[in-house]
């Protein structure tokens, strides 16, 4: 059992997401600690990519803030290395960053030889190796379907990391089998079609998606649209082993940041120092984290009592 499986072992897991470096590295590390205090069982850390095709406006803006604050894969890993939290960490990013990491020297060498042809140096192994070194337990890569994931799956197996696949409401039959064969740690159940973003209601597709996954033992974490303790309760009561919450938390970071930039027009990344303090934003994150965790626990009690 990996550390990720274990995180689901005693009761429903609360799995928050934040983009590292949003709005700057130091604050975002503070926010991650706040989520840890607030009861996170696993934390998904976003490594921002310039073309986040699976994200809605909230996380797109977080990506822009983080990138304009200078976030890079190297800084991401260095920061994670210093981070000491109880919850196991999962890196959520897009495949091109995984694929390019550590390959640039090999790449420019092969370019010299062959005039810019496909690079032999590139591939997911160096990224996974470094992630393992800094204590990351697994990956979610939303633009990497099972069909293209062979090399990353191999590298994860080599270094003992988990690779978490997303199952969509449109995933059925053979595709579902193929994905469930390859996923490890947990499976990310996408609650609704579309992109990430907080929603006021629970998707009516959640129950059916969970039913389709019934015969697999792997923990099922539901994400996309969950924003309140009440929703967390409903999703867990419907059979989820965990809830993944991103945009609702990122919204708190964004609000803290924009409250700040009104007073310190201009550089958003520094602006928050003059507005909402990092501590104030961290407190709000911790409060919502507690609410979400409580909701998940309440949902589990209901699921229990229905079964008995």
């Amino acid at each position: 059992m990996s550390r990720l499986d274990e995180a689901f072992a005693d009761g429903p897991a609360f799995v928050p997401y934040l983009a590292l470096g949003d709005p700057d590295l130091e604050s975002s590390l503070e926010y991650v600690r706040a989520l840890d205090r607030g009861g996170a069982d696993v934390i998904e850390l976003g490594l921002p990519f310039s073309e986040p095709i699976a994200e809605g406006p909230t996380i797109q803006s977080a990506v822009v803030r983080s990138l304009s604050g200078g976030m890079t894969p190297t800084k991401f890993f260095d920061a994670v290395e210093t981070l000491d939290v109880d919850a196991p960490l999962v890196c959520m990013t897009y495949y091109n960053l995984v694929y390019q990491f550590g390959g640039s020297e090999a790449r420019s060498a092969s370019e010299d030889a062959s005039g810019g042809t496909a690079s032999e140096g590139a591939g997911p192994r160096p990224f996974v190796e470094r992630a393992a070194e800094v204590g990351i337990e697994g990956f979610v890569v939303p633009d990497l379907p099972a069909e293209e994931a062979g090399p990353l799956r191999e590298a994860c197996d080599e270094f003992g990391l988990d690779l978490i696949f997303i199952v969509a409401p449109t995933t059925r039959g053979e595709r579902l089998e193929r994905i469930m064969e390859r996923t490890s740690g947990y499976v990310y159940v996408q609650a609704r079609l579309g992109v990430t973003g907080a929603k006021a209601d629970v998707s009516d597709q959640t129950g059916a998606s969970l039913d389709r996954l019934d015969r697999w033992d792997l923990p099922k974490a539901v994400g996309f649209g969950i924003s309140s303790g009440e929703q967390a309760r409903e999703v867990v009561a419907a059979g989820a082993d965990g809830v993944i919450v991103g945009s609702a938390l990122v919204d708190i970071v964004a609000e803290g940041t924009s409250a700040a930039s009104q007073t310190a027009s201009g550089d958003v990344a520094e602006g928050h120092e003059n507005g909402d303090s990092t501590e104030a934003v961290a407190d709000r994150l911790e409060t919502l984290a507690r609410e979400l965790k409580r909701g998940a626990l309440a949902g589990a009690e209901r699921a229990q009592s229905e079964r008995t």
Partner: protein
Amino acid sequence: MSSDTSKFGEYGGQYVPEALMPAIEELDDAYRRYVLENEDGFVDEFRERLRDFGGRPTPLQRADRLSERYDTDLFLKREDLLHGGAHKLNNALGQVLLAKYMGKERIVAETGAGQHGTATAMAAAHLDVPCEIYMGERDINRQRPNVFRMRLNGAAVNPVTTGRGTLKEAISETMRDWATTVETTHYVIGSVVGPHPFPTMVREFQSVISEEARRQFDDQVGGLPDSVVACAGGGSNTMGAFSRFVSDESVDLYAVEAGGSSLAVDEEEGVAPNSASLSTGTEGVLHGARTKLLQDRDGQIVESHSVSSGLDYAGVGPELAYLVDEGRVTPVTVDDDAALEGFHRLSQTEGIIPALETAHAVAWLEQATSEQLGDSVVVCVSGRGDKDLESVIEETASREIPNAPDMDVFSGGMR
């Protein structure tokens, strides 16, 4: 899962969110049945509509004065005469028709120069399917006439404000729409880019260009041309103009990319002031495919630049990247200034006002050696320049373009 044709060497593939995979598999299946096997007479209907609605075949015209200038037999494949004014309709009509055969109720598409958006809006009006077009805010401002045309054909135009507001952001945003609406909607991608089967399917719809050109050249001159020249943004007019010549080793194929203002990448700023992904890009994954990209060493995609919005893209079709690596296609570049000169040259010498994208292909003739061109050349005139008049006049006024006409006929000049 899709067959061996999903890759071109190491390029291509299907790097998309899981939510889209079932739709892409469905599309792959529909492409096979309707387009490759002519199920329900799809291909016959497509050809008929290309003729009656689109105006095909387009002429292969000898350009007498340019032939003289470059001392070769120079022919223009006149895709500018296709309905809508660019090659884009070949693909848009094919995909909108396919969407109907598949029972899809709604069309979304991205557009850069607005030519693909316009072509899609026309095809959607013609075939009576609701249609929404995503277009970068910056492109909306530099391609106003096309925005009006899309609106006139009844399409909604959704401005995309993220990033620099060009083609790359428009594609990302269309993919997000599609990920939400995939059960009822088809994404009509505008070039030979994206996940399999798009690069193959769009190439097949555009191959009518080289299929005609090959036959027309043989009828008019006999045999094969020595070279074929086409501009390359995503590369759809390029692959369309090349594909039926690829197996003819004697025919040299030149893909002309936008050199913009410089071929260097500014890592600090995250910009490449060009769109020359075939000439200067490195391998990576963007918008569903592994291909050549403009990226920094971390793998972040950099912002491209070109005076022509249709070429202003950090990626390129995976098959074209493969053909370049194989040495079958030669990538070359033309910078902004030279492209503007090319624009004016074709307008003045042949009476054809080309699209700024096409102007790159025309401009390269000036740089090419006579060995490269050979005794006979086919240049793909991918589109007409009406959409570009405003930006050309503006861009010309701010530079030293020796062959630009004087616009002082308006009292007080243009500005």
